[in-house]
């Protein structure tokens, strides 16, 4: 059983009077421990796919199973705690709450657990250490560079030890050096810490860092490269 | 006004904000108008009074009586055309929740003295004929559901016992300042029942020439200075004015609250304008790129502030004016003739104008001064 199982998923959006069909009958698997890049032109549905896996969106038809659970069938008030436990999400920008320090931003997912203050502190320091920003933990987002902000976001995404780490265009706003740092970090998360990582990206370098690349076009999987299931 | 649709479009972008802000302005101005009207109503009552009527009370205090025998003596004073008298009854009716004034008056002379108390001739004759009759103001018909011919019983407090009167007349005041909820009964009835003590409360005197008022008043007071009861005589207006001050410093209280209200609303409006201004940076830049001048942009923002202030003023001030008129409000009898004056409306409009300036100025200046290039570069 794959970690993520997408079966016969349709997804249609209504924009005003237009009906936009993003997926029709999409079926694919993502293995545990894999590092997958979702690529494709604008409108191919890659971000939508990510949102479906994270339970942020619901398919019009079909099933989305993550770690054995039928995410597409969960009720809204079940999704929040499920997401807290299983998903670490990084957006392209505006990840961090501007009024909290890096430390406090990373702490946020842990506030949803029953860990004590001391236990939380340990994990936060650990996560910030993994992304190499322990010395910046008291800084506010506006005091960090774009790349540093993304790394803090990644720290937050892993601090609660989620099942999946999902990233939507994480290097979209970054320069070459910062991008490289972030991708290196992601590889490390996958290799050393055995995290399952899925990124949506335009960036060819990101595709290189990943082990598996899925190409989507007009809502269909058209190519699969890299490691097998 | 070719830019009106732009202004309206901007206001319509955040309909909820516009509606709430306008509603706040309306409420504040409604309150402002109401508070000020309390002051103007009391002022009007204080200034009411015929220039040819004098009131004569016991110099020791208004609560002390004057002898009935004074009536003839007063008629003899040069310049005096007519004399009447009245006494405050102050009884309780029912559960006493609704206060209304009750007077014992000398029927014929009092009605002649006060043509403002107007009632049909046949009712007036009935009142003059029947000893235990009374006439009531027409508001009492609404308040208590009384009818012509009905008997009403009042419990006396100053003059103990139960007093029953038959309603023979319903009067309408020709001047709004006069209470339309009084009960007037006959002084001779009061006298009779008390065993003819020969006293009255105060005298009302009509003189031939208003210019002689001070002189005649002095003559009267000198005449009675060494009698059983010395008098204090003055114009009817002075008499009414002394009652108006009894509430204490009402205008200070209402004025202070009014100020707080206006200030609070200024904050709400300025806040709303500021929020809109912050969100609008990019648009202003685009307008300027198209070729709108700084001055035009300034004007657009001010117009927006004006629209809110104007609409709020119309709703609030207009609402106050019509509400009180339509419900015939008189503050439970304490504020007869409660009506929002034109003065108050103008003052309210001025407040709205100031509101517009205060809330719109900063955002308007900001928009006028915005450097285009900088604004276009700004990321959302």
């Amino acid at each position, binding site marked *: 059983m794959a970690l993520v199982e997408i079966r016969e998923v349709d997804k249609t959006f209504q924009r005003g009077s237009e009906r936009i069909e993003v997926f029709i009958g999409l079926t694919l698997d993502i293995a545990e421990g894999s590092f997958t890049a979702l690529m494709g032109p604008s409108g191919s549905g890659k971000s939508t796919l990510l949102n479906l896996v*994270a339970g*942020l*969106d619901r398919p019009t038809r079909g099933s989305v199973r993550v770690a054995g659970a039928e995410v597409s069938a969960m009720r*809204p008030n079940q999704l*929040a*705690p499920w*997401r*807290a*436990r299983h*998903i670490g*999400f990084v*957006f392209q920008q*505006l*990840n*961090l*709450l*501007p*009024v*909290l320090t890096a430390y*406090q931003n990373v702490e946020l*997912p842990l*506030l*949803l657990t029953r860990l004590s203050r001391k236990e939380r502190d340990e994990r936060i320091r650990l996560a910030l250490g993994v992304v190499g920003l322990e010395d910046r933990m008291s800084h506010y987002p506006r005091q960090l560079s774009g790349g540093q902000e993304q790394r803090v976001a990644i720290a937050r995404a892993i601090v609660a030890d989620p099942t999946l780490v999902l990233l*939507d265009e994480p290097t979209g706003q970054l320069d070459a050096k910062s991008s490289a740092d972030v991708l290196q970090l992601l590889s490390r998360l996958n290799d050393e810490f055995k995290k399952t990582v899925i990124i949506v990206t335009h960036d060819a370098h990101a595709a290189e860092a990943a082990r598996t690349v899925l190409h989507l076009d007009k809502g269909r999987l058209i190519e699969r490269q890299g490691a097998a299931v | 006004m070719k830019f009106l649709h732009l202004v309206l479009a901007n206001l319509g972008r955040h309909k909820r*904000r516009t509606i*709430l*802000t306008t*509603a*706040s302005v309306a*409420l*504040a101005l409604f*309150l402002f108008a109401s*508070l000020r009207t309390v002051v103007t109503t009391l002022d009007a009552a204080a200034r009411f009074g015929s220039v040819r009527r004098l009131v004569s009370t016991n110099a*020791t*205090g*208004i*609560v*002390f009586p004057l002898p009935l025998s004074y009536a003839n003596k007063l008629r003899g004073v040069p310049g005096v055309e007519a004399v009447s008298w009245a006494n405050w009854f102050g009884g309780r009716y029912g559960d006493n929740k609704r*206060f209304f004034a009750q007077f014992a008056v000398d029927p014929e002379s009092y009605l002649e003295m006060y043509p403002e108390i107007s009632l049909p001739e046949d009712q007036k004759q009935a009142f003059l004929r029947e000893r235990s009759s009374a006439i009531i103001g027409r508001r009492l018909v609404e308040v208590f559901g009384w009818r012509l011919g009905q008997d009403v019983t009042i419990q006396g*407090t*100053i003059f*103990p016992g139960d007093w029953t009167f038959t309603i023979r007349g319903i009067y309408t005041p020709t001047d709004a300042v006069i209470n339309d909820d009084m009960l007037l009964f006959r002084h001779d009835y009061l006298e009779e029942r008390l065993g003819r003590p020969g006293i009255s409360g105060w005298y009302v005197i009509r003189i031939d020439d208003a210019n002689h008022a001070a002189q005649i008043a002095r003559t009267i007071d000198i005449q009675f200075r060494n009698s059983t009861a*010395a008098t204090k005589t*003055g114009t009817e207006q002075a008499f009414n*004015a*002394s009652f108006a001050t*009894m509430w*204490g410093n009402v205008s200070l209280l209402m004025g*202070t*609250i009014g100020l*707080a*209200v206006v*200030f*609070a609303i200024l*904050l*709400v409006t300025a*806040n*709303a304008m*500021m*929020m809109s201004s912050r969100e609008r940076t990019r648009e202003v830049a685009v307008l300027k790129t198209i070729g709108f001048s700084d001055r035009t942009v300034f004007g657009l923002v001010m117009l927006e502030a004006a629209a809110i202030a104007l609409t709020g003023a119309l709703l609030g001030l207009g609402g106050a004016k019509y509400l009180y008129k339509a419900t015939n409000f008189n503050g439970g009898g304490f504020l007869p003739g409660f009506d929002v004056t034109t003065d108050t409306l103008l003052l309210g409009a001025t407040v709205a104008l100031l509101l517009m300036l205060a809330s719109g100025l900063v955002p308007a200046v900001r928009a006028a001064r915005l450097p285009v290039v900088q604004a276009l570069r700004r990321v959302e």
Partner: protein
Amino acid sequence: MKIPLIYNARSVLQRPVSTAFTALGIGLVVAVFIGMLALANGFRAALARTGSNLNALVLRRGADSELSSGIDRATASILAASPHVASGADGRPLVSPEVYVLIPLSRRGADTGTVANVVVRGIGEAAWKVRANIAVVAGEPPHSGRAEVCVGRKMASTFPNTDVGQTLHFGGRDWTVVCQFTAGGSAFESEIWGENEQFMPVFRGEVFQSVSFRLKDPAAFDEAKRALESDQRLTVDVHLESTFYAEQSQVLGRILEILAFLITSIMAVGAIFGAVNTMYAAVATRAPEIAVLLTLGFHPRSVLLSFLVESALIALVGGVIGILLALPINGIVTSTTNWASFSEIAFSFRVTPGLLLAGLGFALVMGTLGGFFPAWRAARLPVVQALR
């Protein structure tokens, strides 16, 4: 609440002007609320303190105020001999028959046209004992047989010629002021006191307006009332002093309170609208942050609660501002005519801790109401759309 409070506190500080304006608006409403109720409070308190629940007040049957009552000497004597009346240390009954009239006096600084009706009360020796809260603070009590008066402290500050040694003129005679007294802040402090026998010939002749006496057994008031009211020789109504004076404050007290609620309610709606605007703008600006929180797995109701708390926080600040604005009013003396007795009464604004607490509560209610719909919108933010 799971979302840290520090997030709300700091976010509020991010938009200082907006927050300040909203808080100030709420603060003004709270200030008016506290101020007006302090006015009503002060008025009621002055009257409430006037009567004691150890004393009974006897008026002629049917009279609703001391002014409209009349009690002759015979009745006064019968009352003095009643077994329900307590006796003083000297064995004499603690009974005080009193004359009560109103005289016109001009206030300090006002033109002579406008006058206030001031209470002139005739007393006997026993009055000082029957009323336990009276204290002479300047001069000495009036001597019997002389045209001397004692003036209540509040009255002294409002009217001229009321210092010890000065002369007042009323009732066609001159009266020397020989003392000033306090009475626990009650209505008595607005009165002029003098000997019964001096006032009677000047005003209403040989008749008192009221008789006050100390109850032998305060717990047995009802019995005393029944006994005296059913006595064939008398036509009187017996009131518990404290209840009687408290009731005299009803009409005006209630008017002031209703006015307070009406005015502040209308103001509150305006302030709430202001808070609604502010909070909606905040939610709109912080949509990305809300999206992050929801994505992380914070429950929508945590988000709802968080924004409600933020709104309440702003309101609380406003409440404190309101309290600070209203506090200086406490103790300011003002006066009005109590229509129930037609007499002038001076009293001070009275701000109580309870009132301050009510003001804070009011602020919280405004903040919560104003913040509710915006918080609801925040909680239901469609994450996917917010990120587009």
